[in-house]
């Protein structure tokens, strides 16, 4: 294509669009390519977005009618065994007042579309239904644009931003990032179940625009290293469950079997009863952590978002890391364009910015967490069973003295998780999040 741009962005997800908004605001000629028919059609996330990082890009996102499903005022954690489980929640009114929109639920199809529309309004050109198949290079091997699957589909750009997600076939093809190993990736499936808003409000004890999130661990992932979640939307629930890809391969459990069993857990059933499945989608999650990250910049290009493996599994943060990295990439690009230096050196500020920010700081802090979960399967088998047993016995009033009970519980517990094992677990767990 004859027309050239300052920046070409691959992927119209949160990372790519955040960059596009910042760039367009600065008057940079930006084109964004999206392989889906519309931004968001190929995306999936559990469904929680953090207002802080969105506000860094669009401070007036509420006035711009961001499609917010529910504002989260309560977060719960469930630790489940087969037929029972623990439930711990924290509700705080402040999340409805001064810290409103700290976290809120979204649906990707609506949100991504709206977000891309904001970039479009600022002047970025969003091109859907178009796949970027390769990068253009000059004789020195520097990236000078992209090549798409359409005829006359080569577009010159001074800087290219790769923001094409966890699968990023482009990163693999160009060698910027190795194809992630199965143990660094999780496979997640999600169902959106329709439920009238009044029912949701009743079942979760909220009103109006308020919502609840439930993060779930335990035996629910069939013994595999994984997590599940239930989030409340306006008039639907997002149910997601996923596990480490290597574990899936070993266990031969099918993803849809996992979610079907999930929906039948006694603690889940009352929440979803009567709901109609509306949508079903599967996706990968980047779980490699800090050590699986590729180099995020080079001659003429930058990498942001999931494509750079920016994902914090423990705190379910992905969208915000994508947005923050997209913004930082844009800022670095603007500087580079001013100086006319799009070489590796010229774009190095991006990596510095990332390292100085919470993005890399958090990634580093939790770099061992993914491995910890993966290597300690007791967390998903014996430990939930033992804990459930403990609670069950302690809560049963059957004439047995509490001391006796205690002895019994400890004995059973030790059977499942020997003391040595438990101590090691705690030690590793502590190290993993330190």
């Amino acid at each position, binding site marked *: 294509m004859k027309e050239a741009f300052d920046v070409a962005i691959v992927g119209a997800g949160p990372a790519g669009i955040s960059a596009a908004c910042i760039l367009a605001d600065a008057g940079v000629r930006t084109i964004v390519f999206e392989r889906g028919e519309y931004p968001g059609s190929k995306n999936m996330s559990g469904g929680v977005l953090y207002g802080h990082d969105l506000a860094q890009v669009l401070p007036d996102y509420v006035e711009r009618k961001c499609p917010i499903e529910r504002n989260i005022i309560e977060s719960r954690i469930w630790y489940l065994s087969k037929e029972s489980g623990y439930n711990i929640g924290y509700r705080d009114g402040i999340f409805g007042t001064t810290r409103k929109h700290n976290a809120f639920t979204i649906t990707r199809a609506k949100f991504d579309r709206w977000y891309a529309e904001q970039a479009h309004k600022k002047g970025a050109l969003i091109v859907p239904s178009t796949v970027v198949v390769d990068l253009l290079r000059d004789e020195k091997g520097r990236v000078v644009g992209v090549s798409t699957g359409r005829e006359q589909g080569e577009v010159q750009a001074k800087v290219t931003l790769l923001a094409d997600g966890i699968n990023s076939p482009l990163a693999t093809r160009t060698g910027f990032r190795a194809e992630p190993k199965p143990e660094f990736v999780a496979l997640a499936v999600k169902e959106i179940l*329709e439920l*009238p*808003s*009044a029912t949701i409000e009743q079942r979760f004890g909220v009103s109006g625009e308020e919502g609840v999130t439930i993060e779930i661990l335990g035996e629910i992932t069939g013994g595999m290293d994984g997590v599940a979640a239930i989030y409340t939307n306006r*008039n639907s629930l997002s149910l997601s469950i996923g596990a480490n890809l290597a574990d899936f391969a070993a266990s031969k459990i099918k993803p849809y079997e996992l979610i079907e069993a999930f929906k039948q857990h006694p603690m889940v059933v009352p929440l979803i009863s009567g709901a109609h499945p509306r949508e079903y989608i599967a996706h990968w999650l980047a779980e490699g952590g800090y050590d699986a990250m590729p180099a995020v910049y080079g001659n003429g290009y930058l990498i942001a978002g999931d494509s750079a493996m920016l994902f914090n599994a423990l705190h379910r943060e992905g969208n915000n890391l994508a947005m923050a990295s997209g913004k930082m990439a844009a800022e670095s690009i603007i500087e580079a364009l001013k100086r006319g230096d799009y070489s590796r050196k010229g774009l190095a500020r991006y990596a510095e910015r990332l390292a100085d920010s919470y993005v890399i700081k958090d990634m580093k802090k939790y770099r061992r967490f993914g491995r910890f979960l993966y290597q300690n399967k007791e967390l998903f088998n014996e430990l939930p069973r033992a804990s459930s047993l403990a609670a069950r016995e302690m809560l049963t009033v059957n004439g047995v003295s509490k001391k006796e009970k205690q002895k019994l519980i400890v004995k059973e517990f030790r059977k499942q998780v020997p003391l040595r094992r438990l101590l090691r677990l705690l030690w590793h767990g502590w190290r993993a999040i330190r």
Partner: protein
Amino acid sequence: MPKNSKGRDVSEIIPDKCIGCQLCVAECPVGAIEMQGGVAKVDPEVCIGCGKCFDVCPVEAVIFEKPRKKKLTGIGQKPRPLDEYQGVAVFIEVRASKGAEVSWELLGKARELAGKLSTQVFGFLLGSGAEPLAKEAVTYGCDIVYMVDNPLLQTYLSRVYGKAMVNLCEQVKPEILLLGATPQGRDLASVIATQLETGLTADCTGLDIDAQERLLLMTRPTFGGNIMATIVCRSHRPQMSTVRPGVMKMPKRDPQHQGEIRNLDFEAPKEALPRVIDFVPIAPEVGEDIGRAPVLVVAGKGACDAGAMPMLEKLAELMGGAIGCSRPVVQAGLLPYTRQVGQTGRTVSPKIYIGVAVSGAVQHLVGMQGSEKIIAINTDRHAPLVQIADYALIGDYREIVPKLIKGLEARIQTFKSKENSK
């Protein structure tokens, strides 16, 4: 009647009755209606109590009690007193100098409808040298055949046929006009309905009469869901409907039936008409027309297996019938499209329909629900086809069908030897 805080009478929507068509949302002049949880909801504080939502709701889900008559707005046709229109007319389609079977099927149905209305059945026949066909139409139940016989009507041209039919409708004033949903019928029906500014409901699967209101009740599946809709055309005439071949039962010919044949003049359109340069017939299809088979063995999605076809064909042959299929089998390339039964394929009504691993999606059901006896072979007892079948065999067809064939062969043998020993 609910009131809002200002004391005004406001409307209210019954969520259970609301079908989510959103007509009320569009109609409300003050935007008081919003969709919530898939159904419409009135904001009483915004509502001004005009009742437009009540007027527009097709399923009477709106509670509104201001004394109002339902407005019937005219749309271009000068409202004639409706009782000027009498009679049930059927368009007789001519194909290779013969009457199309769908036309006779429609005459059968017309007889039933006319009976409920205590009125007559008319045939509208256009053609050249079509008198023998007019006589045949009488034997299929026409009380009067209105015939327009003219060389210009030898080949179908939209303008020419359209003009002739519009003239007929204006002269004869039938209250109902039925056409077969063939390529010609569809085109022609639309031309007539547009020129007469009347309502046309296409691809109806059921026709009935509301004798009290003297209305034609036209039933057809709504797209995508397991839902049927009944449609009416209240204040425009004729009420028009197209019906697919094979949906209505072929009536018995009655050579003794008395009927009149009236010839009408035809005034050719003045403008230059298109001319047909040639006609290329398609090769007669290999294999029989599944619409005529008395027994149909239909392969479904669960039998999408090239290896299964010979077995199913054998079963069909044994029972003196043909093999058909549902859409996935055609998509898999195992059988040609001419064998497809369903909304986008053929509509069939055999004496015996045997669905082998057919789940029974609504688009398939509408194409075969007129079958006299339905037998379903399926592993899933909750499959829709099993629910409506007369006989259902639950199990793997790969085991059942061979045993069925054996069992039938054995009984045929016994029957034959009994016959021989008589």
